[in-house]
């Protein structure tokens, strides 16, 4: 892999950009791999990268039915934060946050991780109690955070309506300065390029249609391009995880819902942080290109359509205009939807399964973009050692039998 640099850019410009090399190969599937990752989203690609980099396992295929990073990784609103409530979740997301903090350099790919801070607003007395509780827990877990009152919020975001005129006036917020946003595509591509350079085969337009399972153990996968063998298979298929589990003969406690987002037209810089509100129910940040990137909650029904209902868009914009009345004349450019796999406790599943050699990493629901580095890192360790990484252990499927849930609903809310 030729490293990218400003100097390299100048060199390429001199030669009219005729000599750029491919960022990844387009290989023909081998018959057999040590590990197969199903799903070439951010989580799948990160898993492959850390398998190769940390564990030296490079005979790996990532099998993607469409194009790399084309699922939720391409559709999310890129909020990255680690101020989760419960110790287990906080450990996982903070692990991820630490990896984010050196990711561009690690991958030699600018993922534009912008630590511009995230505000989670409180509008009721109970919101404020929950915020205090979460920030106190974060502090004792070593995660940055502060409780702000309405004035503190106003100082950070002068354009937010913090007046008493609002239907639910802002009472305060939690503020995580290290949180922020990143460039979603770059994350997928950066991991893909780095994994490819260590020998990982990225197989696009390849769909897993079934699993080879004998004696309760996985031996490989069936795909539209033929069978491929491996003794270890990690499934990282987000909204389609339930479908894959069904192919393998078991059920996961997941529901797949549409989750929508929208952007405004590009604007000159107007909003420098990420503002989220559970109560008014919407969140917004501004991308480097200038679009306001906006989202809210899932659509209520289940489905695989990658499209949601218009009322959700209306409610979302009502929330945004309620919080930012000055945006009333800003115009919405585009909306889209992804399919998110939600768990009953709003926490992910990183787990072995009833089929030996087969692991699932899913249930990230509305908020797994931020987890990509951490999840890939601990899932790779889990696959490599055939044993749950300590950070991953609380997220095993067993918790739905034991009852040891990690209920992040309260902290998740609009959940990103």
């Amino acid at each position, binding site marked *: 892999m030729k490293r990218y640099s400003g100097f390299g850019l100048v060199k390429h410009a001199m030669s009219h950009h005729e000599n750029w090399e491919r960022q990844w190969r387009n290989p023909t599937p081998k018959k057999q791999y040590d590990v197969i990752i199903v799903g070439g989203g951010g989580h799948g690609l990160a898993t492959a990268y850390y398998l190769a980099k940390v564990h030296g396992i490079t005979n790996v295929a990532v099998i993607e039915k469409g194009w790399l990073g084309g699922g939720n990784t391409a559709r999310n609103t890129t909020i990255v934060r680690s101020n989760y409530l419960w110790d287990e979740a906080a450990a996982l997301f903070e692990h991820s946050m630490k990896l984010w903090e050196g990711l561009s350099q690690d991958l030699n790919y600018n993922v534009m991780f912008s630590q511009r801070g995230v505000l989670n607003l409180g509008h009721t007395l109970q919101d404020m109690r929950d915020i205090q509780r979460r920030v106190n827990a974060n502090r004792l877990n070593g995660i940055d955070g502060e409780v702000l009152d309405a004035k503190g919020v106003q100082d950070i975001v002068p354009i937010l309506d913090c007046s008493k005129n609002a239907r639910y006036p802002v009472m305060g917020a939690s503020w995580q300065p290290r949180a922020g946003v990143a460039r979603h595509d770059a994350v997928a591509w950066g991991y893909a390029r780095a994994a490819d350079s260590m020998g990982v085969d990225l197989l696009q337009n390849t769909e897993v249609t079934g699993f080879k399972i004998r004696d309760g153990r996985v031996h490989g996968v069936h795909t539209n391009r033929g069978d491929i063998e491996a003794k270890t298979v990690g499934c990282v298929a987000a909204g389609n995880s339930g479908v894959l589990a069904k192919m393998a003969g078991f059920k996961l406690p997941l529901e797949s819902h549409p989750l929508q987002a929208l952007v405004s037209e590009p604007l000159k810089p107007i909003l420098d942080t990420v503002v989220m509100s559970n109560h008014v129910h919407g969140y917004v940040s501004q991308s*480097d290109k200038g679009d306001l990137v906006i989202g809210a909650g899932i659509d209520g029904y289940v489905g695989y359509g990658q*499209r949601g209902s218009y009322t959700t*868009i209306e409610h979302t914009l009502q929330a945004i205009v309620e919080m930012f009345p000055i945006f009333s004349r800003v115009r919405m450019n585009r909306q889209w939807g992804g399919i998110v796999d939600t768990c009953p406790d709003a926490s992910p599943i990183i787990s072995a399964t009833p089929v030996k050699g087969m692991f699932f990493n899913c249930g990230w629901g509305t908020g797994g973009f931020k987890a990509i580095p951490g999840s890939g890192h601990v899932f790779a360790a889990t696959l490599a050692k055939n044993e749950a990484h300590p950070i991953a252990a609380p997220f095993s499927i067993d918790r739905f039998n034991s009852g040891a849930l990690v209920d992040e609903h309260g902290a998740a809310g609009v959940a990103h």
Partner: protein
Amino acid sequence: MTQQNRLANGGLIDRKRQLTFTYNGKRYTGYEGDTLASALLANGVDIVNRSFKYSRPRGVVAAGAEEPNALVQLGATESTQVPNVRATQQALYEGLVAKSTNGWPNVQRDLMGMVGKMGGSFMPPGFYYKTFMAPASMWMTYEKYIRKGAGLGRSPTENDPDTYDHLHQHCDVLVIGAGPSGLMAALSAGRRGVRVILCDEQEEMGGSLLDSRELINSQPATRWVSDTLDELNQLDNVTVLSRTTAHGYHDHNFVTLHERRTEHIWDRATPANGRPQVRSRLHRVRAKRVILATGTHERPLVYANNDVPGNMIAGAISSYIRRYGVVPGNSLVLSTNNDHAYRTALNWHEAGRKVVAIVDARPSPKGTLVDQARALDIRIISGSAVIEGKGTNRVSGACVAAIDPAAFKVTGKVEELECDTIASSGGYSPVVHLSSHTGTRPQWNSEIPAFVPGEVKGMTPVGSVTGVFDLKTAFDTALSAIDHALEEAGDTSSSKVTEAPQVDAIQEGPCCALYQVPHTKTTLRAPKQFVDFQNDVTASAIEIATREGFESIEHVKRYTALGFGTDQGKLGNINGMAIAARILNRSIPEVGTTVFRPNYTPVTFGAIAGRHCRDLFDPERYTALHQWHVEHGAEFEDVGQWKRPWYFPKTVNGKKETLDEAVARECLAVREKIGILDASTLGKIDIQGPDAREFLNRVYTNKWAKLAPGRVRYGLMCKDDGMLMDDGTTSCLAENHFLMTTTTGGAAGVLEWLEVWHQTEWPELDVYFTSVTDHWATMTVTGPDARKLMEEVTTDVDLDRESFKFMDWKEGTVAGVPARIFRISFTGELAYEINIQANYAMKVWLELFDKGEKYGLTPYGTETMHVLRAEKGLIIAGQDTDGSVTPEDLGLQWAVGYDKPFEWIGKRALTRPDTSRKDRKQFVGLKPKDANVVLEEGAQIVLDPNQSIPMAMVGHVTSSYYSAHLKRGIALAVVKGGHERMGETVYLPMADGKVHEAEIVSPVFLDPKWERQNV
């Protein structure tokens, strides 16, 4: 300024009405009927923007929704600013104020612009992924400058003065687009009496007929347009919506239309007939049939320097000449691959300006229009194309050469023609956007060549969107679509068959496929050939992307930003796909279709939000006693949608009490004398039916089999995971009739929960639920003197301690009004909850105060209620619980009936290993060691304050108050294994560095024998 490009006559503008407007600080004039773009062109304004990446000068290229360059910041005042308005879609009005959105004239302050000027060659696609990485700490600084350089217009910084409406509409036929086919369809359907909505995004209806050279019934086409509109406007069953864009097409023929009512008049909604108007309306339309008559967008050709001002798409030039009487130049070179575009040269010629040449990519063009051009002695250079434009701020010439499109090669000598305008036409792309919003993929039609709409249930495309471009087909497809649609809907009335009007036949030869024009140099070495103007995406960027392995069209688009602008690639997408296809050696449909998403064109947030902001964002709910609370100075708390009195500060000696002072006073009043709470907001669900009791048994953890009429019981409701969800009392009104109460915030959720279980799991149970929250006002009279006051206001209820026991309820009259009285207590004091029909509540409330004054009756709010119940260790679901707490964690195992016959909700979960763990977080009281300390709610609890971070946390404070009665701070908390830790000391390390100490105690701080509520 003179309008140097305005023709002496012609066009649909009203020359009698001259308008003045300001653009980039300069004053210009135009006419009524102009768009801002036509007026700018009339005034010879060439540069309307700077491009966003390379800061190149850009001019108007189109005349409609597809315009990528001419974006302006509109608005005369700060509060009426609108960013990114397309000048081609903005009607001119007197006093209009606009600015270009980017760079110029402030280009010197625009870092990206400077970088762009210095060398766009350092900015290949995705360059930002490859740079700005070192040192890591600098990214936030780099980003600041990148952000500054990006973006188009700016957000207003003051609040919008206007309002927006939503309308809900149903119709038989929704016709989108009022060109020839749309008008024909609307007319035919309208005459047959069905409900029709016809909408068109433009200022005027007529679509392509507005600049057509063709005659209809031997008259100018605009005549047929106005006759048709006259008739449509007469029909009561037809709604004609101009300036109305169908911007989103959703499932089941749900289409959203954005009707701009005032934007052509002024930048803020002006009153109409003396009444205020909304700025725009959003029509939410359910249509039985959608007629898609959205026409086509012309594709420009991709050649070197095709972005220099003076390069335009051919059809746009025809529009400017014929609709606005504006010729945007003096000498024209037209580069085309089809006959249709010859109209532009003919129009230009008729306008008295010079057509230098028509350059046609086809070796031997033939057809009516070609003949007309030849007859006028216009030079036609066949088998050739414009391969490069000359000039920087305005076209100064065109390099023309013979080409072989299939081999992608220049095959002849390059000739440079002098001209100031280059028109190009690469064919016509049907406007498939709306149909693809539905999730349907457009279909490739290699004849035109372009995509046509895929099949959508309930939708019929008509006219040129079908890929057949002649006028006769437009009329015919429209008529048969309506006949077919109405027939399908069961309407066979053929009495009023509408006939297509007469049109002249025009012979047109086939077009040839040409997207990117070959250059003598390779794409990477040739001057920039733009594909997506708004995002500065060039043919070479697409080539580099594919070389780097971005082979899926979605990857190409994302890596280069192709199609991500506010025009959503209306001009560029197909060209971009064609270029990728050529390089990858695939066909265009193999490379993929592009997915268009709502909105077709951008829509203001305000229009989508409608009236649902501020007061109407979420309904505010008031109790029947609200007015009294307001008059008595209550401060309010938002609880769910309700406004609840939080506390009632008194003004003593001119000083208003603080929250703490008021709450202390209110608490002492209840503990020592008597207080009253408006508890009307608690959810009330009336449950009736033979299986009502059985149903309660299943949704509550405790037993309901034996609750007799006249009795009340406290119930716990768990989710299926065994975690407490809500609590409240339920009273047996009669054998098959119960009244359930819920928390204020939980009411709607609980009702839904009951319905879900009833409807999906136990439909066999005969039981009905009705919300009666608003029907009954609830007043809690509580304190040692409660009985005394009650005795004064009731005559027919025996209030004796023995005959009206704790957890009894009775019917009677209070203050002469029928009432239900419940002897339940959330304060630990003697208490009566009086339910009164809401309409009569105020009378009763006033009478209670009338009679209660001598006892010192004190109104109290939610804060005091919280303190009083906390002194008694009574939980508030949602505050002391968070979805992870079981009844046993709360010490409420007495309310769990494990031996009930039916598997009630949560039972199974409560028998899982984790829920029977001994070290679960359990509900306890905390006594701060320092009596004056009031712990922070949400404070985390540790056993060892000296450990390092991350600390092992064992629980947190859920509620905490200063108890005026106990004269100390008290708190409720959950602590791991807390029930077994009574008397132990725990620590609370706070953000300010203080560490509080507290003792674990029973949550019942007061009257552990529960005697006070039974006095």
